[in-house]
């Protein structure tokens, strides 16, 4: 091990060490303070004379006299099955007062890109029990589907509900949850832990917590540690892993902070030009792999600054992930939970996860028809606000009625309501019966016969019972 006491400059999270020798790019560094405290860091730039080290944690207390040790390896984490049921810090140190699990393997936290030729296309439908997701933006195993939320919206609640309810039909296996808290408040973290404890999900979960008062640079490591653990559980231990990362916005802020400290040329809104690649290094670790039983599904959560979908964080995320579930403040204000707005939401892998034998033969067309009808209804709502409902045609008024009913019956559901896909589709058909049949151009005629009439009857019976 090489130790130096030649720090020449400290700026933000960066420490410059002079006259080093044999130091590798990406190597992990340990800095020992005068009081014996140790901080970790990583080599960002190495030339013949100077190593630039990014410190994970505050640089407070580091002086030019501090000792710097280069550990000769890149950032690694010890992983094992025993991590299930445990809580770790954002750097992977246990914080639940139990001894560290014995590592079965030590892995580089940056991972390696999955060979596109080794991937298997995701195709297994995950039933989340939430109509707007299952029915219209279906999640499949191996997908990365973020929640686009904003401050004050119930994204954490929805994430917990998904984690609790998610299952693959016909299989009893539950998902293992790897949870990465990135710069969220103690209160939010507590909400997740409490819910996991209450439902017993904690036994099948690994938690990594970097909280708001933890060093921001650490935030760059937390998701990588979580994903390395998840990859190990999925591809070495044959588990189906659901990774929830919240909040990616805090991650991006940390990235910008470090980039600014390095005096890099900023891209849009001060975020570094490589943010797309950097985020992709996280999101692309989701997937299914040929010859492996396990899968890695991601639900990253981000809060859109100013509710703006074109802000670089949601924008770049949307370009990498396979769709997005968008929460809407307007719906939430109307008292609708979960406030998922189906119109800007999208699941790119939906078509490969639904259909006969997976969900139902009518699923795809029904979903298209619901989209189109709801979009039309919303447009007409805006129009009728100007010209009055009286100026609309009969058909248009039916669309208005449809949009209202759709929000009340299809989008709205309880926090503990776990809807089957059958039920979701039936509600959809029942709502379509509001519209004249010739408007239903996107669905096959035979499906109208086969499913709509049945659904309407079923609903009538249910209504009768109540």
């Amino acid at each position: 091990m090489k130790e130096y006491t030649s720090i020449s400059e400290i700026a933000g999270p960066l420490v410059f060490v002079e006259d080093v020798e044999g130091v590798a790019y990406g190597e992990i560094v340990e800095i020992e303070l005068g009081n014996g405290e140790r901080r970790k860091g990583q080599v960002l730039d190495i030339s013949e004379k100077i190593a630039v080290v990014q410190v994970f944690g505050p640089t407070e207390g580091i002086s030019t006299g501090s000792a710097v040790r280069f550990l000769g390896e890149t950032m690694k984490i010890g992983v094992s099955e025993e991590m299930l049921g445990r809580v770790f810090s954002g750097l992977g140190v246990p914080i639940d007062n139990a001894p560290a699990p014995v590592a079965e393997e030590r892995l580089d936290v940056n991972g390696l890109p999955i060979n596109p030729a080794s991937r298997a296309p995701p195709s297994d439908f995950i039933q989340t029990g939430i109509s707007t997701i299952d029915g219209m933006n279906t999640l499949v195993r191996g997908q990365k589907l973020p929640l686009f939320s904003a401050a004050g919206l119930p994204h954490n609640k929805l994430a917990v509900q998904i984690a609790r309810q998610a299952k693959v039909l016909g299989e009893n296996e539950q998902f293992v949850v790897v949870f990465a808290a990135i710069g969220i408040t103690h209160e939010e973290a507590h909400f997740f832990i409490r819910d996991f404890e209450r439902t017993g999900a904690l036994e099948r979960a690994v938690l990594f917590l970097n909280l708001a008062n933890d060093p921001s640079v650490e935030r760059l490591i937390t998701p990588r540690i979580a994903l390395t653990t998840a990859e190990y559980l999925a591809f070495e231990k044959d588990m189906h892993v659901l990774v929830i990362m919240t909040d990616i916005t805090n991650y991006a802020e940390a990235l910008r902070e470090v980039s600014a400290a390095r005096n890099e040329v900023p891209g849009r809104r001060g975020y570094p030009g490589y943010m797309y690649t950097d985020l992709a290094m996280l999101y692309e670790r989701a997937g299914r792999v040929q010859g492996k039983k396990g899968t890695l599904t991601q639900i990253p959560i981000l809060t859109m600054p100013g509710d703006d979908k074109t802000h670089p964080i949601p924008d770049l995320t949307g370009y990498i992930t396979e769709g997005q579930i968008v929460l809407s403040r307007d719906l939430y204000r109307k008292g609708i939970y979960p406030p998922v707005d189906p119109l800007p939401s999208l699941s790119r892998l939906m078509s490969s996860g639904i259909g006969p034998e997976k969900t139902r033969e009518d699923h795809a067309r029904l979903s298209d028809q619901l989209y189109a009808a709801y979009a039309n209804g919303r447009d007409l709502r805006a129009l009728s606000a100007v010209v009055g409902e009286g100026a609309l045609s009969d058909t248009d008024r039916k669309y208005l009625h449809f949009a209202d009913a759709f929000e009340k019956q299809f989008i709205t559901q309880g926090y503990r309501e776990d809807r089957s896909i059958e039920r979701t589709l039936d509600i959809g058909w029942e709502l379509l019966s509001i519209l004249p049949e010739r408007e239903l151009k996107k669905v096959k005629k035979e499906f109208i016969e086969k499913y709509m009439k049945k659904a309407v009857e079923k609903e009538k019976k249910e209504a009768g019972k109540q």
Partner: protein
Amino acid sequence: MLMNVNGDHMVKKGKIVRVAGPVVQAKGIDASMYDVVRVGEEQLIGEVIKIVGNVSVIQVYEDTAGLKPGDPVVGTGMPLAVELGPGILKNIYDGIQRPLEVIAEESGTYIKRGAVAAPLDRKKKWTFKPLVKKGDKIRRGAIIGTVQETDLIEHRVLSPYDGTVKSIKEGSFTVEDEIGEIEHMGQKKALRLSHRWPVRRARPFVEKQPPNVLLTTGMRVIDTFFPIAKGGTTAIPGPFGSGKTVTQQSLAKWSDADVVVYVGCGERGNEMTEVLHEFPKLTDPRSGKPLLERTVLIANTSNMPVAAREASIYTGITLAEYYRDMGYSVALMADSTSRWAEALREIGGRLEEMPGEEGYPAYLARKLAEFYERSGRVETLSGKEGSVTIIGAVSPPGGDLSEPVSQNTLRVVKVFLALDASLAQRRHFPAINWLTSYSLYKDGLMEWFAKNVSEEFVQRRDEAMKLLQREAELQEIVQLVGPDALPDKEQLILIVTRMLREDFLQQNAFHEVDMYCTLEKADAMLANILEFYRQGLATLERGVEIKSIANANVVEEIGRMKYLEHVKDVKAIKERIAKELGNLSA
């Protein structure tokens, strides 16, 4: 300048002096610009992109973690080149033409650093049939023989030299075997099934031809309103979720190119996997053979090294030009050129270059123009006609087209397919905005349409477009006063344009019939809708209420005509329109 597979070159050793991300500086290799070098103990592949005194600045195509000052760097004295020969098709390569399937077999699920594999299978034997004989005087680029590369594509082996054929063999050969000899400027040179070509240099041709042949895509909105010419350039910009990738994949599936080069540049891994798993199952509507037989994939996904992403576009276009030179029409899909531009920006940033707009390097416009200019329908060196059509996706941040990549692209491309998020949100797919998109090939293709579709086609198209434009104006009024306040004639236009939008422009890429539409069918569909308009006008003249027209049975029939398999069934609707509307009375 051409090189053999086993080209001789000088080897110069040097050492690393600095590492910062994908950029490494080295001393003592005495390299030229764009030379390929091997970096570190693991021999990572890199390329010299800047020279300052005795320091070479190298972009490394793999993750650089673990490299340190003092590590060896070896110059190869050769520029970044691809291997051209049989075995390219059906393959999936990374950005620097490493075969990903071979790498997966050798090193498993993940791409490990320093993985090496020959782009073309060294062991596979191909049956070669010569087309020249001893004593023939041939020109560079001449076809010296053929190999059946896939069921669909006959690989035409091109001579890298001018000269006199000294010998030529028939039989089974690997890509490295000598298949003959040629005397070139007094020297004997070996002929093989393969040769190398530097990716940053365009392959030569005799001359470019005018863009007056249609590249049929099977997508109604494109073939009818925004046609793409063979050898042309097209940009598809759009925010995320507007269907860029589905559009690109549909084009890769159904366009009538002989060969498709699909470059996944900085995009999703699962998408490339989808293509890889779906294409062998899909059949080409013209030949009935699996689509993969004519396809080569270049996958440098977003999490793969950024420098190789920069190279992937050049690797792709060079492969495309190679098949063009055999006399094929080639379509190159680049998804997405924005990610390529970002790779340029990232590397430019690491070089501490003075940035231009939004941090992009000042040479962005030139690089984009150079790339698109490698398209074209040409007379090849062997006298055949070949073409490279480029269809590039653009991913503007926030969907805002005023950003530099979109703007610089629009200055060079001739077809602009504007994807619109609001259309995508209401599931209007393909979400191509018919009012803002354009094609500058329309005029040049007029004759082609008249000859190959029908005399009336262009006229019908223009009439339909006029109606759609009129609709946009009417919609503004409707927003203020509601649709019922419009005169009947204008309400009829709204009914007809809704048909145009929903029953013609919208096309379901996942429907077994609708996913591909012939021009004959598109023409018949247009004719039906316009017939409805004409008959509707006549019916209104007779004092019939607009409601009766809107509720006619044929309306639903028109709505479902896109799902009809046979064109004659579509054509048959026209008569029923005339009959039903003709029978309406006040």
